[in-house]
């Protein structure tokens, strides 16, 4: 598995500079608008982009079929990809918290959000990343990366539509806006648990897909 993760990291090297520059620009933007949530939100996008990009390169080079001629099983290939997704999850969370703390500290009183909000928003974003990865990964294995990109976009459109619908209903909107910190944290915790369960379920589906697939 280590070898497979190394492969993904090496393939990302060429994009490393681009991502670094983008993050610096986002931080500058966050400082300008006194809010770090844009930075954290776009970390989610980068995390997903990286995950999909590495899968895409594997597909283009037909690496997975070749890798199965190494002492690797389909299960190990899937494990490596999910572990990589978790590594990205950790990276998004750590970068989001550190970046958010840094900007909040730099902005001082001008910051629109506090340290607690940085942590909560980062964790929420990280969970959304993971929840998307949970859907995207088995779709990549089943349909290929290009088709699953459409699915990925469709998922976000559906989620956005659901939220738009909720906010269009007055009493729902009031309820959501008046949520206390305790209820909100409970919601985040439930979302976290669902994400974890989703991850396990998604992993098992991916293993089954890969074990039944022919190359």
């Amino acid at each position, binding site marked *: 598995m280590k070898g497979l993760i190394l492969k993904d990291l090496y393939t990302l090297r060429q994009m490393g500079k681009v991502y670094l520059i983008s993050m610096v620009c986002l931080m500058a933007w966050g400082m300008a608008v006194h809010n770090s949530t844009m930075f954290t939100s776009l970390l989610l996008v980068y995390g997903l982009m990286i995950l999909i990009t590495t899968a895409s390169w594997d597909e283009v*080079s037909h690496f997975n079929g070749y890798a199965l001629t190494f002492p690797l099983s389909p299960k190990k290939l899937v494990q490596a990809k999910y572990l990589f997704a978790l590594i990205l999850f950790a990276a998004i969370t750590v970068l989001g918290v550190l970046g958010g703390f840094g900007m909040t500290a730099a902005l001082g009183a001008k910051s629109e959000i506090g340290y607690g909000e940085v942590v909560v928003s980062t964790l929420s974003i990280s969970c959304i990343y993971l929840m998307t990865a949970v859907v995207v990964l088995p779709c990549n294995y089943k349909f290929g990366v290009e088709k699953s990109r459409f699915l990925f976009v469709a998922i976000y459109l559906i989620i956005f539509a659901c939220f738009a619908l909720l906010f269009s209903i007055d009493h729902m909107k009031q309820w959501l806006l008046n949520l206390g910190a305790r209820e909100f944290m409970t919601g985040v915790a439930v979302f976290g648990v669902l994400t974890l369960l989703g991850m396990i379920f998604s992993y098992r589906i991916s293993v089954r897909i890969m074990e039944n697939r022919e190359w």
Partner: protein
Amino acid sequence: MNGAIEVRNLVKRYPDFVLENVSFRVPEGSIVGFIGENGAGKSTTMKAILGLIKRDDGEISLLGEPDGAREEALKEQIGVVFDENCFPEHISREDVNRMLKAIFKNWQEKLFFKLCERFGIPGKKKIKEYSRGMKMKLSIAVAMSHQARLLILDEATSGLDPVVRAEILDMLREFVMDEHHTVFFSSHITSDIEKIADYILLIHKGRILLYEDRDTLLEQYALVRCSDEVAAKLDPKTVVGVRHGRFDTEVLVRSREGLKPGEHLAVDRVSLEDILLYTAEKPENERCIK
């Protein structure tokens, strides 16, 4: 002697193609050339051997291990080369080394770099900057750098120039100098197979038509040029294929026994390409060359 590869009654069905009761044995220490026209079933057979596709019936044993033996342990001893580079193109040979060191228990880093130097595979460049020949040589260097006992190559020399192909064939000859090393490779460049193979396995439309020692094959088979009347008198059991030309008829026969070259009959040596051409044509159709 154990078989490095033993295939018994392999069957694989697709909607428009069937691999039908394929059986053969690749002796340890030999080079077996696997030939057939495009779509004959070479890659399907190889993928079934490697476990990349599920078979509908049959048994396959590799390196003396029974069918169903621990795959991962077996794969340590098998080196595979496909007809294209399968590494992501943004990595270098050093990255490949580090990656495979973590995957193969018996990865030989020094040998890998020695082979890369010998093949002229550049150090710092990314794979996307390599020529096609270099990419193929990288794959071969990888296949030979983890103490593999069996090399399986699927059209590995396709699209390569004669110089690179000759280099690769030399490498394969060197590899089997160890009597426990075996090479099983498929190609439709029959001249490559003719140069180094000990045995020839020919597949046509999903069925094995021929499995023979190369020298015996090339000595026994013959190309007879004669008139239609003389061709009609040849023993049908020995006739593999017939071509009618404007001036004469060419008949590929399995045995040159009893054939006497004379005024009305010329007997020529055959090449593997001739055997493939005549065998791949439908026996009931005779192709006319106008």
